[in-house]
């Protein structure tokens, strides 16, 4: 670390400290499940804002998992003197003591009921890096992933209606909300907070070991800029700078997934990034969905493993009367977009984590399939 970087770091630290001098330090909970989110002192309500504690670093993903149009404030915290080890492919090797949080929230609609939430992806007005203005947002849940001696634990909290704190909800919850778009069209839905065991459905990416891991903090998802309080900076570089990450190459030399919504990126890169984060945690060679022979993480070649002309194995009525997962050039004859376009629990994919259809995601995957050439011809 150069002297100037050190100075900058110290200065930033001082500035951050000034904002949060009334918060107790982050409490790594070595075991058990504290009853309140505020017991962790990671994110906390202060003066009408949800604020981040000292050393709690926010981050975003190039392409995030879709969760009913919810916005997400993701944070990471580590004890002093330790750091995560960089890995080009897998989740970074985080030290025991790491606490990751993800707060799901919606921008409120103007003059709407509290249960009216905005259908939008635009997070630019959220000020997530510095906190959330509670008069503008509806907090739904915060999930804690904590790395203990015994491994990672997933602990869900559901926000109280008065938005003062979130309470432990091991068995999850079903919360009726209404999505309102910018033309005031309304869609009622049940926001579902997964139970602890369902958390593992996604976070256990190996169904033999059943160990759970964070999904987002991988090089390809974090290799992007974030609008920090002190200005824009690449997230990998920032994590290295604050001492949370070691062994990382320069961002230009690290893998990077496309932003699914970035129309400057290729359709293929956007679609593969979308499938990677939305499907790859189960559809990988060791995951829950490896029973299907369908692999959708970013590493899979563009052949039958990705679903091209592949007959389904156990889709049941999820086939939607279609014969193959992907029929090149024929999105309306393909199973993938059919299942994405359903909100029926027995048909939809992903099978957990959403109750509404991600219309823009479906449109992306359909456009990607439409752009492929070939078709599938059965042989006898």
């Amino acid at each position, binding site marked *: 670390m150069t002297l100037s970087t050190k100075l900058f770091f110290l200065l930033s630290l001082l500035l951050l400290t000034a904002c949060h001098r009334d918060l107790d330090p982050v409490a790594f909970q070595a075991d058990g499940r504290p009853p309140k989110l505020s017991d962790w002192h990671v994110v906390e309500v202060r003066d009408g804002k949800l604020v981040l504690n000292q050393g709690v670093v926010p981050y975003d993903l190039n392409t995030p998992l879709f969760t009913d149009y919810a916005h997400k404030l993701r944070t990471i915290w580590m004890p002093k003197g330790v750091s995560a080890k960089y890995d080009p492919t897998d989740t970074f090797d985080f030290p025991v003591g790491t606490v990751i949080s993800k707060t799901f929230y919606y921008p409120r609609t103007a003059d709407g009921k509290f249960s009216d939430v905005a259908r939008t992806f635009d997070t630019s007005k959220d000020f997530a890096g510095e906190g959330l203005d509670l008069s503008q947002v509806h907090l739904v849940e915060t999930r804690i992933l904590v790395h203990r001696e015994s491994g990672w634990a997933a602990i869900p909290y559901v926000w109280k209606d008065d938005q003062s704190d979130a309470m432990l909800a091991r068995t999850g919850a*079903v919360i009726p909300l209404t999505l309102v778009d910018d033309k005031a069209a309304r869609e009622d839905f049940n926001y579902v907070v997964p139970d602890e065991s369902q958390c593992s459905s996604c976070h256990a990416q190996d169904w033999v070991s059943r160990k759970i891991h964070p999904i987002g903090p991988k090089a390809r998802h974090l290799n992007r800029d974030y609008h920090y309080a002190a200005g824009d900076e690449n997230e990998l570089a920032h994590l290295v700078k604050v001492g949370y990450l070691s062994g990382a190459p320069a961002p230009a030399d690290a893998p990077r997934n496309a932003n699914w919504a970035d129309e400057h990126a290729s359709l293929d890169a956007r679609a593969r990034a979308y499938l990677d984060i939305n499907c790859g945690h189960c559809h990988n060679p060791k995951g829950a969905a490896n*029973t299907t022979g369908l692999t959708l993480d970013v590493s899979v070649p563009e052949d039958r493993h990705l679903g091209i002309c592949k007959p389904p*194995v156990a889709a049941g009525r999820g086939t939607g009367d279609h014969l*193959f997962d992907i029929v090149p050039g024929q999105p309306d004859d393909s199973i993938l977009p059919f299942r994405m376009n359903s909100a029926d629990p*027995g048909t939809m994919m992903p099978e957990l984590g959403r109750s509404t259809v991600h219309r823009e995601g479906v449109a992306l995957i359909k456009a990607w399939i439409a752009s492929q050439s070939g078709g599938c011809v059965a042989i*006898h």
Partner: protein
Amino acid sequence: MRKTLLFLALPLALAACHHDEQAAQSGADATFEANLQQQLLDAKPGSVIDIPAGHYHLQRGLSLRTDGVTIKGAGMDKTVLSFKGQVVGPEGLLVNANDFTIENLALEDTKGDALKINQGKNITIRGVRVEWTGGPKTTNGAYGLYPVKTQNVLIEDSVVIGASDAGIYVGQSHTIVVRRNRAEYNVAGIEIENSVNADVYENTATHNTGGILVFNMPNLSQAGHSTRVFKNQVIDNNTDNFAAKGAAVASVPRGSGVVVNSNDKVEIFDNDIVDSQTANVIISSYFSTNYYNTKGVAADYNPYPKGIFIYDNRFKGGGDSPDGLKFKTLKTAVYGLNGKFPDILWDGYVDEKSLVDGLPPANDRFCIQNGDVGVINADGPHDYKNPSTDTKPYQCTLPKLPPVVLDPEPKA
């Protein structure tokens, strides 16, 4: 052994008041659901979760990830978990654990699969009823009892009704016993897929589209072989196929008794196979499913059934009203308008490259020792143009498979 008693105070009166079609969840149901989820989360190896008699409405799929847990009800007609109002799925119960036992309860009307056990060894399913109560419908969940990638599996004394794919489906597993179950009004009654060493016996499969299926699908972790289907009652499996197109079982003709597709070393003996209107036994290759294409199927996949041995079964009726225009035309061409297919229908696909003097190698043959039972080779490869009814090619025997031994034996 830890034993956890669930809700002693739960009003038994609940059982009486749930015959309406509403999926509404009462406060008592919600409490039950939360408590049951909590028990599944808190379970430790050795835990026994007792669910008393009652008819409970659940909104959300359940899941369990702890080894060594037993879930017990008061009986498959007494303890009923109904998922009619399910908003989160897809399964009724998803298990990712070893040494799991579930017995004496029912799962009804799940949106997707009813009981899925994904990865795990030493699995016992006993006296469990799975039912879609509205009868056979395409909108029913796909699989009833569904262990996949498991080993040392016992499914016994259970009942599955109305699955839109397979009632009892064991996939990509090994060392399997499926016995004394009843499967009815499913597309496939009992299906063993890509599995190794399975004994399927003393079951009753009736009113399904196909009674008992032994399949091999492409692109999966293992190819299946060595299944014995014996002492079963496979009767009147003539329900119209109500699977969604594209599902493997959507290719099964209505009126199929026992079907082997692309699987190897299958023994079918000592069964009563009766009144299946397409054919009592069908032996076929993946080519006949119409899903085979070189882009979407792994190059090392073997689509041909090999080493199939059929002996000492009691056949009766059947073959009189085959499903589909091709089979109807074939039947009329060979046996006349009022004739019927013989008990065994083979689609005729054979690996030409492997033939020695016109026959497959000895252990890959298709052998029949079943009195004067008839066979039709439908000549699928040539679009049914030159069917053959000659039974001489099947006059052979194969070494018999050893019985499947569960190790460890399941707890009584």
